[in-house]
Every structure is written in structure tokens, then in C-alpha cells.
């Protein structure tokens, strides 16, 4: 293993990390927002129906 091999490995690890992190963030963020948005929507609907 030479220095250029280590550099190559480091670059490859970065590519792998990006390829893992981008979809993971999209999916976790999407599932979190789905629950958050629909929970607050339900709560708002409940409050408005009680007010009536």
C-alpha cells in the first residue's frame, strides 16, 4: 500500500458515505415530516371541531 492507494481508498470511502447519507437523510426526513405534518393537521382539526 502506497500513499496514493490510501488517498484512493479515502476518496472511495467519501463516495460511499455520500451515496449512503443522501438517500438516508431524504427517507428519514420524509418519514419524520409525514408524521409531524399529519399529526399537527389532526390536532388542528380536533381543536377547530371542539371550538365549534
Amino acid at each position, binding site marked *: *500500500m502506497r500513499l496514493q*492507494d490510501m488517498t*484512493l*481508498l479515502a*476518496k*472511495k*470511502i467519501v*463516495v*460511499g458515505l455520500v*451515496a*449512503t447519507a*443522501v*438517500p*438516508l437523510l*431524504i*427517507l*428519514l426526513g*420524509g*418519514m419524520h*415530516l*409525514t*408524521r409531524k*405534518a*399529519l*399529526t399537527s*393537521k*389532526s390536532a388542528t382539526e380536533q381543536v377547530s371541531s371542539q371550538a365549534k
Partner: protein
Amino acid sequence: MKMDAEVRERIISNGLASVLIYALPVALMFLTFYFTGQRPWQQTPNTSVPLLHYYQSFEQALGPLNNYALTLFVFVLGILEFSFGLYEGRWTKNERSTDIACFAASYIVIRPIVTYFGLRVLPIVLPGLKNHFAWVPFFWGVFIICVADDLTQYWYHRLHHQVPWLWRFHRTHHSAAYMGMAMASRQNVIYTIFFSQIYLTAALVYVGLGGPALIVLGLKGIITTLAHSSIPWDKPFYKYKVLHPIAWVLERLISTPATHHAHHADTTDDGIGYYKGNFGNMFFLWDVIFGTAHISREYPKSYGITHYQGDQWYAQLLWPIFKSKVEGSELAANGPMVK
């Protein structure tokens, strides 16, 4: 060696489109909940499918049933291939050693790393998220994992073909002059260790999608092994006219032996081989969407890399840690990046 400007532009535009495709299952799930009023996180866990819930922890989802069943399937397929003489005497001692070493490495090296990642790393990286999204209904979980796992593998694979400095990590998978069940796991160990989709799926299992992952990974194992196999299960679909509509759908949806064998061809000159595309693993749909598909319904006459001269099995398994002794090889100490 630099990447072609046109290829770079297509990678960027297709990559941006992929962001939308990754988000699609979650967006559709959101719309379904919005219009139907479903709020699965408010429900108690569904006990009507106990088997699926049994597998909803990380340890069990990637547990022995899935592993052993797929291993058994690969062995049975291998026996069939040998029985029909499908390797045609091209499985030399060096190729045999490479295939067996790669197959064993995937069990000995990769599994402990992924298990460690799941049990030790994920609780640190995603604190408090264990089973946090276990409320995702099974159907949507399958949809999410199908897209997440396979689209990520498509990109990982495509980049190793189109980015010149990544090619040598993937070269081992293409060096054999034959196709067979062993080809699916014939990979350089560095390529396999950093398989992005493994860690992505492990993370999704950790957050609660274990049941769907079990089903998707089992199905994916079968499709990808059969696509590499020398048993042309798809031929009857092309032969009989009545089956042509099914063939049309199948060959665009999943990887078939014809499309994936074309990817392993040693030339593109015959109009059949297409190692510049057909990167899909479970789904071929990604190739259709991104314009990297080539469908001919025919099988290449020869496979591998034209300039391959039998690099030692240890160099193919562990490059760049060990180098090839073959003069001028891409895996040799002073070899070219792409020959």
C-alpha cells in the same frame, strides 16, 4: 485519465433526478395518509402478521433464515450449472480460487462488519431512532426499501464503471470469461465492504423497517443471482409469442440473464454486449429511466475483459492492498487506471 464531460453531466442530472425518486415512496405514502385519514403511528402494533413483527429487530432481520436460505439457493444453482456443464471448462484454477475467495470473504468479512455497524455504530449515529419508524405500514416499507436499496446499488455500480479511478475496485467482477452463480459475489473485498446500500438498508432496519427489508433482500438475492447465472430462465419468454407482453414488462422491470449478461460481455461491437450500461441489480427500471439500458433479447458470445490475463486471485480480491504480478495489468503496481 479524466471522465468524459458528457458522462459527468449525465451523472449530475441523473443524480438530481434520483433525489426525487428516493423521495417518491415517502411522498406517495404521505398523500395516501392525507387523503385516507390513516395515522398508523396512533395504532397499536398489528399482531395479525406475527412472523413479520418477529423479524422487526435488526438482529433478526438479517438473521439466519435469510442468510441460509439464499446460500442454499446459490449452492443448488451452482450444482445445476455444473451438472449442465455451463462453465465449459473455463473455470481454471485461478478463476476458481478467485470465485471461492470472494464468496467466502462476503461471509467472513462483510457480515461481521455489517453486524457491528448495526449493533454498535447506528445507536451512536442515530441515537433514539431504534424502531422509531416501525409504524410505517408493511407495503410502504417494502416500497421504500426497494427504491432505497436498489437505486443506491445502481448508483454505486454505475459510478464504478463511469468514474475512471473507481473502475479497478469493480474490475474483479468483470474479469471472468464466463457467467455463473458465483459471479454475483465475485467482487474485490474493498468494493464489497463499502457497498453503500448495505449500510443504508441496515440503517432503515434499525429505524424499524426490518420486516420489509427481509422480504426485499430475499427477493433481490434471488433476482441478482439468477441474472448472473448461466441458466437462461428468460429465453422461453422471448421464444413464444404469447409470452412476449410478459417479456416486455419483465426485461424493463428486473434484471434478466439477457440484459445482465450483456453487461458482462467483453465487447459492444456485436450489438448485443453492453458493458457501458445495464447497471441495474434487482430492478432494470433504473437503466430505462436514466437511459443506460440496452435490450437485445440475445446472449453475448463471450464475456469478461479482452485484455485480462489472469491476475492472481489475491490481487483480484484485495487490490490495492495486494497488487497483480501481471505486467501492464490495471491491478499491477504501476498499471494503468483503465486499459
